[in-house]
């Protein structure tokens, strides 16, 4: 893989990460917030795979496998936490929280 192609992949990874970051900062819905963190993770995963290919090693790909598993574990955890909160509040809007001010 040439340097130019690597840069293109890195650009895609960085753009995904920034999209996720902006979504995380601006959205108010918990599910969308969670999607945003997943988008950030995928941006990182693209970086790793691209670097892995660039160096023609397997380390980055191995990292991505673990990354995906962690992302799945976090997804199920997020679903659980959100369902718990939803049953209590009947909304997924972040602004509806009044218990903790800070």
């Amino acid at each position: 893989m040439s340097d130019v192609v690597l840069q293109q992949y890195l650009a895609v990874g960085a753009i995904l990460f920034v999209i996720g970051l902006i979504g995380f900062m601006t959205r108010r819905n918990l599910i969308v917030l969670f999607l945003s963190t997943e988008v950030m993770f995928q941006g990182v995963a693209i970086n790793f795979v691209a670097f892995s290919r660039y160096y023609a090693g397997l380390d980055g790909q191995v990292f991505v496998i673990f990354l995906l598993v962690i992302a799945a574990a976090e997804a199920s955890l997020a679903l659980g936490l959100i369902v718990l909160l939803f049953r209590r509040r009947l909304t997924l809007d972040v602004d509806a929280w009044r218990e903790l001010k800070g």
Partner: protein
Amino acid sequence: MTDLLSITIPELILVGAACVLFFLGCSRRTAARGVAAWLALGALLSALVVSVYALFSAVAPVEMVSGSLRLDNFGRYIRVLGLAVGVILLLLAWPTRADRTGNSALRFGGDVGEFYAMFLLSIAGLLLVAVADDLIVLFMALELLSIPTYIMVSISRPIAAAQEAAVKYFFLGALSIAVMLLGFSYLYGSTGQIRFAEMSAVLRGSMEATGALPRWQMFGVILVLIGFAYKMAAFPLHFYAGDVYEGAATPVTAFLAFVPKTAGFVALIRLLTVVGGDHFKLPPQILTFLWVLAALTMTIGNVLALLQNNVKRVLAYSSVAHSGYMLVGIAALFPHLQRPDPRPLALSGVLFYLAAYGIMNCGVFGVLMLLPARDGRDDSAETFEELAGQGRRHLGLGLGMAVCCLSLIGIPLTVGFLGKLMLIRPALAGGLTWLAIILVINAAVSATYYLHIIGVMFLRSEGAVDEQGLSGEAAMRRPQFAVGLGVVLSVIGTLLFGAVPPAAQILTYGAELGAEISCAQPIAPPATGPGRLAADSP
């Protein structure tokens, strides 16, 4: 060189016990819930015995064959520290109710087995962070540490505040992990290595060649530092502390104030070894970054703590400030101006302070747990009104709180004083005079709110005791030997390690042993050029 099993005995004990605890969690019987706590305690104690033996017997670092784990004295010390404080934390979380569904502050209902399983898994994660020797294991260990804490916060109390705290903690944690991972990817990309040994060789090579890190390597390091700041509750990502610490049940708060924070510092120290090698020859930008981080963290933490009404929030932001104090020691790792090398002193100072903070912190939160809530909630005391006059009513608890608070300020004859001393000395020796001055000023500011806590407990008169207050008293009268034992242990530890020279010397010796951190030498020639994959694949 050794294999996976012999290097990870304490972790295996904890994870094995956690598996059994999950099965106990399926049972609905009271006896099973009682057994769960004892099983967790047994696992922690046996892992502690193994680790103490390892700390004082072995000297040379051991590596796993494939080089993913590396156990040096630093890792051995962190193991002992994490497990010892873990025992006290477990005592605070002991199910003292008759039906074993929690204690005065903790109400996990039927999820006792799960709670202790999460507890053990999280501590196992902390121990693994200390021995991780490549990016993958470090990442997995940090996640093993974090994911259980989110669940612990959520199931610790059946109230909305706890669940909101868990969601908040989880989302900001996911954000910080994402930032950290981005840093990891750039570190991997700019060095081409995933193992710390080879990565360190590349980083130090570029440092020696140009005197600075290339842009991408520097960017990666800074991103990872920011990601770790969340775990440490340090400046850029500290703001969650108040809400999360308030929402979680008090024993879980004590857990959050120690375990993730320690893991953050351990990971940070490990990263700095990778960047600067055994002698922490860090680039000046990183030193400046750490300097600013330390100054801002302690100042912001203390200012925010001054503004709070809720004692748990005060302690949350004071925990931010304590992270700042420890960052002073981290900033002093860099042998500034090449005076008598303050490095081992600085590192052992940080390790000593971690232990000191863990001990006194448990004491403060334990006393809060034992004091009754005023409005009839079956919970720990949380506001200053609830603390008012309780020091005179329960003299022992009041004195315990006073000792721990004085130690947190850093008054002589307590372990907190020795800890601050061991942070200030290397800072002065390393030429960080201003940072040391900021630290002292901050310690003085922190005295305001710590003394306020003590003053409220002893000087302010109790509010009118109403019927609900009496029901709170009823909760108080249930014997909570385990929690009391935890408090007594922390108070004794605070005084013993601070005022009795031989005990203090043992802890100092342990911290100095732990300061023997080293970065592995590359085992394989680095830089597998492009084409390896093509050769491997058919």
